[in-house]
């Protein structure tokens, strides 16, 4: 019955505003969860922490445990920032896990087999990610193949290429490469600090720079964005290239932290990043979402993970829980959307 709303509106005439005002008040409650995601997440995180402190006083409220939780947010946080930007623009990337593994392997081969200076290997790994993301962006914006299919194909291709390069991985990376992922500062490992910088810069960019604000317009109405002078293809291309860069950063940091570049790294990171972003207020319809929301989504997921580990729940449950959290988050998103 797609006919109903349009004809209703035709009849609405000048009274439409009055009518919708009332409607909005009625649905305020229903849409509240979808609207104020930040408050909801802070509330959930507080409740969860309180519950854990009460139930596991020896295991949960310990400095070491907090450091572990924050370290756990590092990789997902870096990836979710990129995913959030894409989701605001109305697209997403399923190839991030494969880009992550591939970049780590490239950095590993560079530093161990070829013997370039560690900093060059680090940059090489990150740029590998940028290149993969740029390829995604090129295929999507030039060949007009949709993002889901393109990045799904890229996920398979890159995973295979990674294994082709290094059948099982690059082990025992040289000492010089380790500080990037293993240095401690204020009791926290470097990946956390890298993530913190990425989050802060991205938060500033998404809320204040003209370039990144364009993602909101594109996600809200791509056609109207183009007709208002926004170069939609260019912005989308840069979005994917940025996602690739962040995946490369995450992959290189992981290799450095583990002193090992693992071929099977990053499996499932796409699911986790999309879940965290949707939890944090992104919508599959595009146009909404914030970086601070994304970070809270990531933190919430790390707490859940931590809870499962402390409660000695078998590992496979974690995957089940993440999947269910994603479904619930998308359900809330749809609910809010329908109310509009």
């Amino acid at each position, binding site marked *: *019955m*797609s*006919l*109903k709303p*349009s*004809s*209703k*509106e*035709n*009849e*609405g*005439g*000048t*009274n*439409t*505003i*009055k*009518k*919708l*005002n*009332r*409607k*909005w008040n009625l649905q305020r409650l229903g849409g509240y969860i979808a609207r104020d995601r930040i408050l909801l997440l802070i509330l959930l995180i507080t409740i969860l922490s309180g519950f854990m402190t009460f139930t596991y006083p020896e295991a949960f409220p310990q400095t070491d445990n907090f450091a572990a939780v924050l370290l756990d947010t590092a990789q997902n946080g870096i990836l979710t920032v990129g995913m959030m930007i894409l989701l605001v623009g109305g697209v997403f990337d399923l190839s991030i896990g494969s880009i992550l593994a591939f970049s780590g392997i490239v950095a590993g081969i560079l530093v161990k087999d070829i013997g370039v200076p560690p900093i060059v290997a680090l940059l090489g790994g990150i740029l590998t990610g940028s290149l993969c993301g740029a390829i995604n962006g090129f295929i999507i914006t030039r060949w007009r193949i949709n993002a889901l299919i393109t990045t799904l194909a890229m996920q398979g291709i890159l995973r295979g290429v990674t294994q082709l390069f290094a059948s099982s991985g690059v082990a025992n990376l040289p000492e010089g490469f380790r500080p990037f992922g293993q240095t401690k500062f204020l009791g926290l490992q470097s990946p956390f600090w890298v993530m913190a910088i990425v989050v802060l810069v991205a938060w500033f960019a998404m809320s*204040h*720079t*003209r*370039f990144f*604000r*364009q993602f*909101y*317009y594109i996600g*809200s*109405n791509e*056609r*109207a*964005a*183009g*007709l*208002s*002078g*926004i*170069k939609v293809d260019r912005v989308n291309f840069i979005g994917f290239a940025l996602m690739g860069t962040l995946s490369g950063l995450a992959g290189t940091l992981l290799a450095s932290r583990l002193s090992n570049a693992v071929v099977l790294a990053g499996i499932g990171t796409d699911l986790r990043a999309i879940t965290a972003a949707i939890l944090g207020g992104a919508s599959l319809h595009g*146009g*909404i979402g914030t970086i601070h929301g994304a970070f809270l989504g990531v933190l919430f997921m790390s707490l859940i993970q931590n809870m499962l580990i402390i409660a000695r729940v078998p590992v496979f449950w974690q995957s089940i829980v993440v999947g269910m959290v994603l479904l619930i988050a998308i359900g809330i998103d749809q609910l809010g959307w329908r109310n*509009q």
Partner: protein
Amino acid sequence: MPESNNKSSIANIGSQYTRLSVKGIYKSFPGVQALDDVSFEVLPGEIHAVVGENGAGKSTLMHIIAGVYQPNEGKMELDGSFYIPGDEKAAQKSGIAIVFQEGSLFAPLSVAENIFAGRQPVNKLGFVDFEKMKKHTQELLQDLEVNIQPSTLVADLSPGQRQLVDIAKALSQQVKLLILDEPTSSLTISEARLLFKIIRRLAELSVSIIYVTHRLAEVFEIADRVTVLRDGKVSGVREVENTIPDEIIHLEVGRELLFAHETARVPVEASIALEIENLVAPPVKSSSITVRAGEIVCLAGLVGAGRTELCETIFGIRQPVSGRILVDGSEITPRHPIDAMRAGIGMVPEDRREAGLFLSMSVAANIGVANMEKVTHMGLLADSEIKQLAKEYTDTLKVVTPSLEREVMYLSGGNQQKVLLARWLARQPRILIVDEPTRGVDVGSKADLYAILRELAKSGVALLVVSSDLPEVLALAHRIVVMSEGRTVGELNPDQADEVSIIQMATPRSIITQGG
């Protein structure tokens, strides 16, 4: 006006029972009284037109008759017995079919599958009997003298052919009353002729037709009687033979000549702001236009004449094959709307919701989007400046909104259109293209929008306005350029032109001779 040649049923009015009678219908939506004590009746075999401005209640009334909406009060009778359709299915069972403007076909399926959607004939094994379905469809289409193959995919049909398939679908289910909602809006002249022929045949078979339209010429060509709605009330019922278009317009508008034409001419010395020379960009075939600063040039023509495509080419959405676009005498080659914008051009697109607005974003953001260059300093957006800009232009255009933060989807059509105009006015364009400036807005906003466009022209902006609403063209234009089949075919002076002369110029010759 073309005279109706099917008045036979008129003679019998009064002696016959009524097919459908609607009595004292009230229907309100939150905050709006859409229908206010509406009564009217349709006789068997009668072609009954229902006309009225946007928002007069035509669609709501048709939706109630077709069972889509339930009335708050009132009753209906069909062939003398109570008729209370609970939903569309129930209405269909009672023999009432409605064909909507937008159509309700499944594009990836064949014509036959569409006509028998949901009730495909099956063979003994329970599988769909495609042969039977095709045969029935063939018969149905032949009956209507429509030359479409049953196995053709709907996606491959023209909008007009789809409309005919939609009608065939409605007729395939024992219809007593057929409701057509703006059926000719997407038809070519020859398709419209065919449709009229079909309608007359159906009337002879004593099927009643309710014909909803805003085109008076069609009312006088096809209808027996006409009911006029205004602000949810019936303002008059007339026999077409005994009325004239002016009377119907009065009943619709309730005011004398609401939008008088402004006689002020643009001095010929005014510089040419926009010049299009032999522009070719399929389906646009060689078009030339000039618009002077301070002039409103209206681009008239039938749907599908290439007017929108021409505007899109000027604005850099389509690339021309040949020809030139000149702004203030220098050639531009816009590859993207931003290029046209930098040359001083703005464009308000035809489809406000799909191509214009960011519905879930605020009024301020909707105005800011095309003005980001202006309010960006070292890459950073100044939100306060966006708000200031938005405030300035929403005040000037008198946009009714509770705040600048209000999501634009909650505004009325007229205010949404003003927000779009504000977006472009904030750029202070030299040239503004407006495609269908008042589609789907109420009469009050229409007057506001005309005033805004005239004011803009006075301030020296060159306006190129596309409109399918001929009274609007006549009211607004300093000069009328007519397009037909992708070409600009001539110019008219609005002081001397009328609806008939525009349509004559806009109608492709080939179809006139073919059609009649």
